[in-house]
């Protein structure tokens, strides 16, 4: 039996009978881009789907299509007694702050940002650790000894990616040369594949043959330009190897699926805790992708080096500097 009630009046929310009967009524608010964005939101979607498959507990969901809906969607879920509620993406931070304060008994989890409230769990990632690993791979894959980084909007988070990457590159090849470009200083910098392609072209002209893009939609243009010019790109967030098989060296993965899955499972098992979770290599929160599309590009030595670096970071032998800690990069 499926009750699909009147969701549209309240911003198109679908509740299903299964969740009404079970005690746990989890909900997730996807951000702009939607749950099939082949990236961040889709990662969360995969995570909550896994939870649903394993436990049989259905969840309510909403895809935000304009900024004003974030607060509305969160509040609607909270008002209806959904718990826990997962908010995807740092853009929901402000909305969540308000709503979480209004519903102190509801458990909220925000992915990729920090909200300091007693009923909010904030999950962030040690992107610098994952970036370090792809930096090691990039340096080893480069024939020219020159590698590139292209960021989206110039914000501290993206500098954190860049800094981790630079450290990995230098660790693997101390004399490697690194070019770094930020696409812009406005949000348009996330969606400018044309500029991304041009930035990549400029780095390729200077000799770069592996380019890491941490730039959202702009990154699509970067990977395209790298593939067009017979060079290698590195994807970000989700596995982007499939975009240009054989032309994408690897992708730096943010395991948002694990994060969302963990939040739901934690709430179910009673282990959910408010506060900040910083997921790094040790927690399986970040990593790099190896699949059929790129296995020919990753030699055994490269894999060994990356695995070694990962082990060193996990054991604490190597610490990757976090740019956001002091707004400085040692390299």
């Amino acid at each position, binding site marked *: 039996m499926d009750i699909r009630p009147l969701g549209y009046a309240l911003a198109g929310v679908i509740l299903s009978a299964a969740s009404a009967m079970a005690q746990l009524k989890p909900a997730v608010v996807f951000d702009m881009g*939607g749950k099939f964005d082949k990236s961040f939101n889709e990662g969360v979607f995969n995570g909550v789907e896994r939870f649903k498959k394993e436990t049989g507990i259905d969840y309510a969901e909403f895809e935000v299509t304009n900024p004003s809906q974030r607060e509305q969607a969160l509040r609607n879920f909270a008002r209806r007694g959904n718990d826990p509620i997962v908010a995807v993406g740092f853009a929901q931070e402000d909305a969540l702050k308000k709503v979480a304060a209004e519903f102190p008994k509801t458990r909220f989890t925000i992915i990729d940002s920090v909200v300091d409230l007693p009923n909010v769990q904030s999950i962030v990632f040690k992107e610098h650790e994952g970036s370090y690993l792809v930096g090691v791979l990039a340096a080893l894959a480069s024939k020219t000894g020159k590698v590139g980084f292209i960021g989206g909007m110039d914000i501290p988070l993206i500098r954190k990616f860049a800094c981790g990457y630079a450290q990995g590159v230098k660790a693997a090849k101390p004399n490697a040369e690194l070019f770094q*470009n930020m696409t812009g200083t406005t949000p*348009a910098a996330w969606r*400018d*594949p044309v500029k991304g392609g*041009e930035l990549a072209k400029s780095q390729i002209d200077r000799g770069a043959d592996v380019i890491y893009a941490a730039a959202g939609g702009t990154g*699509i243009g970067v990977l395209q330009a790298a593939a067009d010019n017979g060079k290698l790109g590195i994807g970000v967030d989700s596995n982007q190897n499939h975009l*240009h098989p054989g032309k994408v060296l690897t992708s730096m993965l943010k395991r948002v699926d694990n994060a969302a899955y963990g939040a739901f499972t934690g709430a179910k098992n009673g282990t959910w805790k408010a506060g900040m979770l910083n997921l790094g290599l040790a927690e399986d929160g970040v990593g790099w992708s190896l699949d059929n599309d790129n296995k020919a590009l990753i030699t055994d030595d490269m894999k060994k080096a990356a695995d070694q670096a990962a082990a060193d970071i996990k054991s604490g032998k190597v610490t990757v500097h976090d740019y956001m800690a002091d707004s400085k990069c040692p390299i």
Partner: protein
Amino acid sequence: MSFQDVILILASALRLSTPLLLACLAGLYSERAGVFNIGLEGKMLAAAFAAAVVATLTSSAMLGLLGAIVIGIAFSMIHGFASITQRGNQIVSGVAINTLALGLTAVLGNAWYKEGGRTPPLPASVRFQPIELPFAAEARSIPILGPIYSDLLSGHYGFVYAALAAVPLTAFILQRTRFGLRLRAVGENPAAVDTAGVSVERMRYLALACCGALCGLAGAYMSTAQSASFVTEMTAGKGFIALAALIFAKWRPWGALGACLLFGLLDAVAIRLEGATLPLIGQVPVQAIQSLPYLLTVVLLAGFIGRAVPPKAGGVPYVKERR
């Protein structure tokens, strides 16, 4: 910085200025005919989307281009209907075009392909490929002229050459043809054109059609040549920079070429200098270079570098017998 570096920066400037130039000329046709066009961004965006979708469906870049031109003209006609026939405010309807294009492309893209508004990546065979000019490879070894020919002038997409060719063509049409004379007259003194027995409305619609076609070219260049798919909001403000260039160019074709090349060059230089340290200056403030186009336009508008006088009848819907 070596000679080769300079060549590469100039080539990059040429690529970057092409969509600006196409959009700027598009704006020129429309504004010289008296229709202020803040909707360039939206028309380009819709065209870029149409190019990617049609190319995906038909596996033909050429049909994609055709689709882009058709949609560019269609959006221009909507703009025209609102601001010429219905005599609505040109700026407001232009903004509406932008909003419409932004929303429509995102919604349709998401509904059809379910990739967050992106269209599926096009294989190389369905994209435009760079054109190598004859003897480019052989000429490379000639000193100075060789690199200029082989690396700067050769190896661009057809759109780049089309945009460059559109400049003298536009100048010729505006200055030397009857159509051009009427088009300019409609923008300066529509009553006089009307008295001469030429339909002001028809002239303005024709000008908007030219505008839409050029926006179509710019859109197709972005989604099926420079990139291989449409991405939501991929025009990233180029339509507005093109407008700034149009003002900077004082609404003249050759000026448009100069302004767009200058803006493209500033962009290319900013890309190259990012993170570089120069003697005396230290770390180059890239943001300062990136803001130069806007700054220059403001300075120009303030009257420091000559005067930018817009077409006299611009922004005003033509009404017969108004006293």
